C-alpha cells in the first residue's frame, strides 16, 4: 500500500514527529511505500543543522535514516520559506514540495494519516 503521513506541528515541543517516524518504520517493515509530508511548523524537522543535547534524539537524523531506507520526505516549500529554511539546510533525501504534491499524495495514496495541529 502507499501510505502518507502528514505532520503539522514542530518537533521536540510535541511528540508528532516521533509518532510519525514510528508509524513510518512500522509501515516500512510491512513492505508499504511510505511518504512523510512536513507541513507548517513541522518543516523545521528536516533541518540537518539541529543540535539536540546529548542523550536526546536527533529528529532530522532519524528522518534521514528513514529516507535512506526508502521513505520519501516531502516538505511544504512555502512553509520552509516562512521559516527561513533553505534547500541547503535540509537533510539528504528530502524534497521541497508544495500543495500540488500534497494533492497528488492525497489522491494516489491508499491511506492518508494526518496528525492534527
Amino acid at each position, binding site marked *: 500500500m502507499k501510505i502518507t503521513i502528514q505532520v*503539522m506541528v514542530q518537533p521536540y515541543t510535541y511528540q508528532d514527529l516521533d509518532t510519525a517516524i514510528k508509524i513510518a518504520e512500522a509501515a516500512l517493515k510491512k513492505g508499504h511505500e511510505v511518504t512523510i509530508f512536513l*507541513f*507548517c511548523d513541522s518543516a523545521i524537522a528536516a533541518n540537518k543543522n539541529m543540535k539536540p543535547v546529548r542523550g536526546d534524539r536527533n529528529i532530522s537524523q532519524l528522518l534521514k535514516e528513514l529516507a535512506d531506507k526508502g521513505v520519501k520526505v516531502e516538505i511544504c516549500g512555502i512553509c520552509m520559506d516562512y521559516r527561513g529554511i533553505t534547500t541547503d539546510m535540509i537533510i539528504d533525501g528530502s524534497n521541497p514540495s508544495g*500543495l*500540488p504534491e500534497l494533492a*497528488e499524495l*492525497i*489522491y494516489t495514496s491508499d491511506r492518508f494519516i*494526518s496528525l*492534527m495541529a
Partner: protein
Amino acid sequence: MEKKVLFVVYQSPVGSIWVNEGFRTAFGMYGEDIEPSVMLIDAATVALSKDTSPESLGLLPIKIVQRFIKRYETPVYALKEDIEKYKVKNIDENFGAQFIKKDNLSDFFHQFDLVIFM
C-alpha cells in the same frame, strides 16, 4: 475515482494560522480529482463574522479566501452549535457557509474519504 476530503479547522481565526491554512490547503487540491470542503468548528467559527479582522493586528487577513471560494465553489460548513457558543454575529455571506448540526456530524464526516483536522 474522485476523493472527497474535508479540512476541519477548530482554532481561532485570530491568533492562529489554521483557518488560512485550511482554506489554502483546500484550494491546493483542485489540480487532482479531489473534491475539497472546509469546515469550521469551535473557535474557528468566529472567522465567519464580518467583524473579525486579524489584519487589524497586522496578521494575515481571512477574507482573501472568499474570492477563491467563489471561483472554485468550495463548500464551506460550520457547526451550528459552535456559531451559537461563540455568539458569532453578522455572518459574512461571501463564505457561503452551510450549517451542520452536531447530531448530524457523524453521518456528515462519514461522507468523506478523509477528514483532516488542522
